[in-house]
């Protein structure tokens, strides 16, 4: 399994990347970030780009910055850097929990947050956490920048709403200012580090009287793309922990799992309910501390 021939360009700036993408003409030009998804696809000849634009030398594209009400991630920030970041563990504990489940040490050392989002695997952990927290992303072309929401970005399994000439430069994940916040992240996979069969991310904020004032919950692997559980979130607001038992049935209406070699649709439904409960329980316990 060897990749087909391609031209290789090591880009040195964001402008250069955008220009190369804009000038593609009939060629297929692809960005290579960590290569942890693209290179296997090329080896299997499922991708045959004419040109690879390597963005790994563009230092402007990597880095984690605390901006008070949100944290900015350069699209080229490695999953390993997120795992090791104090800003992330202090400000975005849900992202810190999610990233530990992404692949293995060897893949996290190369794989980037941006590559994971643009690729759009239905069970990828970082896009799920970003979706739950209502993150936005910055897409750039030669003619300028646009900010885009995560809701609506994931169209189908491994199909995302990005144009061939667009470069993802930044991901902005909101930091909740509430005093009592808790998070929970659960997934089930065939082996440690494998892609999740089902994964769930939950973040809650509690009022003084222990009622839920904010809820962010998303699921991966239970539909062709990650799903934010809007109905369940809404049903929990103003309620306490006891409300969960009756509200959990709402999960079924928002997911649309498939049967594949790893699990049946029915199994995925049952596991999703269970993992949503566990993630919420963890979040409640953490917030109540």
């Amino acid at each position, binding site marked *: 399994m*060897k*990749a087909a021939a391609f031209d290789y360009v090591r880009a040195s700036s964001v402008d250069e990347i955008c220009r190369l993408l804009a000038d593609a003409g009939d060629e297929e030009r692809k960005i290579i970030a960590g290569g942890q998804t693209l*290179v*296997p696809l090329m080896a*299997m000849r499922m991708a045959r780009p004419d040109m*690879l634009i*390597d963005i790994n030398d563009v230092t402007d594209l990597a880095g984690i910055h605390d901006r008070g009400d949100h944290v900015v991630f350069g699209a080229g920030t490695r999953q390993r850097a997120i795992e090791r970041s104090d800003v992330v563990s202090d400000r975005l504990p849900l992202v810190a929990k999610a990233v530990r489940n992404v692949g293995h*040490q*060897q893949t996290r050392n*190369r794989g980037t947050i941006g590559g994971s989002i643009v690729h759009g695997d239905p069970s990828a952990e970082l896009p799920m956490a970003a979706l739950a927290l209502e993150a936005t992303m910055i897409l750039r072309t030669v003619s300028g920048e646009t900010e885009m929401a995560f809701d609506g970005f994931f169209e189908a399994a491994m199909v995302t709403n990005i144009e061939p000439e667009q470069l993802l430069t930044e991901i902005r994940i909101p930091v909740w200012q509430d005093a009592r916040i808790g998070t929970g992240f659960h997934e089930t996979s065939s082996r440690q580090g494998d892609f999740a069969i089902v994964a769930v991310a939950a973040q809650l904020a509690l009022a003084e009287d222990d009622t839920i004032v904010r809820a962010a919950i998303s699921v991966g692997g239970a539909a062709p793309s990650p799903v934010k559980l809007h109905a369940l979130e809404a049903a929990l607001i103003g309620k306490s922990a006891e409300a969960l038992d009756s509200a959990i049935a709402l999960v079924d209406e928002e997911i649309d799992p498939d049967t594949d070699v790893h699990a049946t649709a029915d199994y995925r439904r049952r596991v999703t309910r269970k993992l949503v409960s566990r993630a919420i329980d963890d979040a409640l316990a953490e917030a109540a501390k």
Partner: protein
Amino acid sequence: MKQIEVTLNVNGKDTTLTIPPRMSLVDCLRDMLRLTGTHVGCEHGVCGACSVFFDDEPIRSCLMFAVQAEGHKITTVEGLLNDDGSLSDLQDSFWECHAMQCGYCTPGMLVASEALLAENSNPNEDDIREAISGNLCRCTGYQQIVEAVQMTAKHRREGAAHG
């Protein structure tokens, strides 16, 4: 096919080569530099046999094109040997604990374990299993590999205490 000239720093030595961009780093290491200690199994990122250090962090060398490695430091399993060419303490523990049978996974297991030990001098079993979770072994059942890493960690802690 178009070729590019690159200079690779592998195990402390610079070599300049002319290669096509599509050549993976693992093929370059094995076929061009004749460093066949690094194994190649699946060629699409699943088995971990091709693990090498890239700027002191473990990566899969089948998921990088060799042209991308210019300007970075690569260490292969050959680079783990002691300076006098003898087996390192970790390699010795693999021997001692029978942590290999066919040996296919061994270079990757050594790289993944060495990376863990660099960060954590006293890993528990879960830490070790997590660190080698990206490396498949079809022979040992992993138990002896876990024991070899624990043995090395213990020797190094004792060495540090006495040294």
